[in-house]
């Protein structure tokens, strides 16, 4: 945002400010033109007045020496005052002064003080004598008392006929009073300066200045335009300056600043609105999503859904995430289950293979030992001894009987030796079997994989253990609040524990011959040793048990069922399984025929 404002600032500076500067230069130039025109208007006005007086029979007669009363009635100070003139002079033909009056700062002064109409003055012949009726001189002149605008007309008859009788000269000082009036009229801060006094940067003099406009000078405060006016001789004489304050540029800068300020304020407001909008529609939902993901990452509980109810893209994303999460949860559960079963299958196969391999030499060894015991049956040792003991036996065969006895004992000894080896083999393989079983025992100490489980999912699956063709109607009541509880447990283990307890309740109901069997499953929270636990309860209206049985029901081999119906291992196994999951199990009953309650305490799932 700051970069955007800086960019806009430079764009405005590059585009808007030059436009204002150009406008300001145009305005300054207009001021100069107005100042120049104002001076020219004064000159034109002066010329108009002199044209009223020059071609006039009365002054014609007067300058010809015939109308002497004209001077008394017209050539008086009030006439100059009324006409706004500072100087008036009447010349006879040939340039001889007939009458004149000069007013300077309210006082009458001799005309000679002007040092304008002296015989040696370069402009005198343009002013005091005119060769014909069309001859006239109008413009600005330099005098000893300051610059004046001047108009000199030939004196003619009123009908402009001649011959030229003389010259009428009228002039006005370009003094501060007149400048003040010009400033008021033009509203331009104009000043006058003699061109010879004008020096630019000390390097330019009068010789370098031509009539016309000079280069514009621009300072921080004002734009100054100048024009050099020529005197009646055509020489550069008077420099008119108009000084235009840089109000337009200042206004432009203020405009740019105001625009930037407005832009910054609008930008800030836009950012706030966008932030508020994004926080509500994007940031907060994404934060919720992120928090949820972190929660799942820490707890590993994929069963917890986000449930972000919104119709926008974030809501759709959250919905898809929940769906994906649920699918992953189900897949993980199935994988764990499958992995558990596959692990059990692999283990069982390996154990079967190894034990059967070990049993094979044992069986064959024992078979050979059995045969060894029968070797003696095939020998005729007793007969040979009898023959040797019989005095009537053939003496020639006695040696062979002895030889036979020796061979028989050798044979028995060999068989005995083989049997000893076979028994050693049997013992060795028995130890092998023992080692295999010891290995399996180690695995029983490996904790099964625990996960966060929603209780009702496991309970509903466990309740399927009740046979559909039950001879007694069983009402299974699964409390609604079960879906509010999550436990940290091994899924298959908990499933088997609950299945065992529900089956136990079912069988108890059958034994009680209750017409309306009822099994209810509920849950509640409790804290044991500062650990949050969930207590699952399986309640039945079966046989129940007496107080003295309470502590025996989980003992190995204990059963309340008929002999031969059971091994008495179910509840004992449940107790061990629950203990391995960090939980506890206990039973309660009001007595025989009062039904029973089995409670399973398991750690509550982390992260809800």
């Amino acid at each position, binding site marked *: 945002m700051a970069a955007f404002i800086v960019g806009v600032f430079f764009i405005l500076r590059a585009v808007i400010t030059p436009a204002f500067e150009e406008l300001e230069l145009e305005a300054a130039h207009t001021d100069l033109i107005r100042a120049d025109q104002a001076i020219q208007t004064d000159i034109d006005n002066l010329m108009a007045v002199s044209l009223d007086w020059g071609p006039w029979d009365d002054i014609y007669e007067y300058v010809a020496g015939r109308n002497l009363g004209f001077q008394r009635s017209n050539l008086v100070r009030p006439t100059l005052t009324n006409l706004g003139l500072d100087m008036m002079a009447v010349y006879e033909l040939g340039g001889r002064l007939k009458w004149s009056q000069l007013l300077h700062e309210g006082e009458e002064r001799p005309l000679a003080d002007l040092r304008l109409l002296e015989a040696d003055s370069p402009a005198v012949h343009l002013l005091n004598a005119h060769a014909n009726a069309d001859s006239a001189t109008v413009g600005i002149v330099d005098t000893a008392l300051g610059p004046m605008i001047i108009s000199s007309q030939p004196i003619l008859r009123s009908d402009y006929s001649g011959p030229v009788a003389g010259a009428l000269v009228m002039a006005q000082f370009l003094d501060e009073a007149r400048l003040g009036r010009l400033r008021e009229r033009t509203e331009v801060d104009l000043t006058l300066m003699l061109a010879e006094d004008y020096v630019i940067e000390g390097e330019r003099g009068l010789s370098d200045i031509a009539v016309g406009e000079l280069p514009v000078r621009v300072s921080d405060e004002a734009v100054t335009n100048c024009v050099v006016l020529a005197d009646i001789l055509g020489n550069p004489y008077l420099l008119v300056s108009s000084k235009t304050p840089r109000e337009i540029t200042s206004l432009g800068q203020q405009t740019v600043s105001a625009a930037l300020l407005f832009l910054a304020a609008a930008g800030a407001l836009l950012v706030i609105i966008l932030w508020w909008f994004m926080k509500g529609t994007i940031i907060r939902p994404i934060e919720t999503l992120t928090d949820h993901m972190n929660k799942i990452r820490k707890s590993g509980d994929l069963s917890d859904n986000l449930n972000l109810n919104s119709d926008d893209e974030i809501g759709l994303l959250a919905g898809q995430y929940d769906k994906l999460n649920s699918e992953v949860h189900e897949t993980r559960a199935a994988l764990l289950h499958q992995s558990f079963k596959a692990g059990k299958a692999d283990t069982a196969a390996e154990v079967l293979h190894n034990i059967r391999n070990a049993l094979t*030499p044992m069986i064959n060894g024992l078979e050979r030992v059995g*045969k060894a015991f029968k070797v003696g049956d095939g020998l005729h040792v007793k007969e040979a001894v009898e023959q040797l003991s019989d005095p009537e036996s053939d003496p020639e065969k006695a040696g*062979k009987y002895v030889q036979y006895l020796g*061979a028989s004992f050798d044979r028995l000894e060999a068989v005995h030796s083989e049997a000893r080896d076979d028994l050693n*083999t049997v013992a*060795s393989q028995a130890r092998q079997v023992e080692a295999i079983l010891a290995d399996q025992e180690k695995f029983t100490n490996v904790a099964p994989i625990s996960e966060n489980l929603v209780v009702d999912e496991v309970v509903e699956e466990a309740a399927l253990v009740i046979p559909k063709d039950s001879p007694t109607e069983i009402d299974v009541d699964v409390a609604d609040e079960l879906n509010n509880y999550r436990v940290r447990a091994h899924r298959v283990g908990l499933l088997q524990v609950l299945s065992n307890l529900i089956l136990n309740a079912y069988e108890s109901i059958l034994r009680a011959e209750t017409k309306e069997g009822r099994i209810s499953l509920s849950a509640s929270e409790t804290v044991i040793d500062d650990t949050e636990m969930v207590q699952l309860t399986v309640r039945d209206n079966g046989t129940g048990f007496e107080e003295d049985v309470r502590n025996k029901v989980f003992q190995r081999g204990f059963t309340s069922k008929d002999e031969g119906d059971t091994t008495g291992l179910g509840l004992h196994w449940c107790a061990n399984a629950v203990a391995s999951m960090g939980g506890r199990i206990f039973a309660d009953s009001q007595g025989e025929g009062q039904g029973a309650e089995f409670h399973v305490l398991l750690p509550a799932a982390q992260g809800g």
Partner: protein
Amino acid sequence: MGSQYNDENIRVLIADDDEYILQAYRDAFADTESTQAMRALDELAAELFDTTDSDDDEPHFDVVACSQGDDAISLAEKAANEGHPFDVVILDVRMPPGIDGVETGCRIRELDPDVEIVFVTGFSDVPLEELQRRVPPPLKLHYFNKPLSFSRLAQDVASMVREH
């Protein structure tokens, strides 16, 4: 063991990775062999007590044993090349770290279409139908689960050879 060929003996090749089992095989299939001392004892008994030698009808085996499938294939190929192929090959299914008994049976079947192949295993992941498909024909394929009596197996082996 069994390096001397006797055309009347049943030639048996056994492969099992368990040395105790191999020894049990050897003991069982050598049971019917008579040592010189035993023959002398029998001759004396016949002379002194007028008994007859009841061992004449017992089958006799030439047994070659190994612990890996690759060795069994080499031995079967060598015996076939020498013109004395085995009558029966007894294979364990699991024989780590080498190839398993099923693969060994397939290869030996390619070498000798007539040999009787016996699978003996403590546990097999391979169903019997697949064994019959991979090591045909079914009539020359036999399957036993451990544990079993090898002396009885020896009798069965003798029966297989006599019947075919």
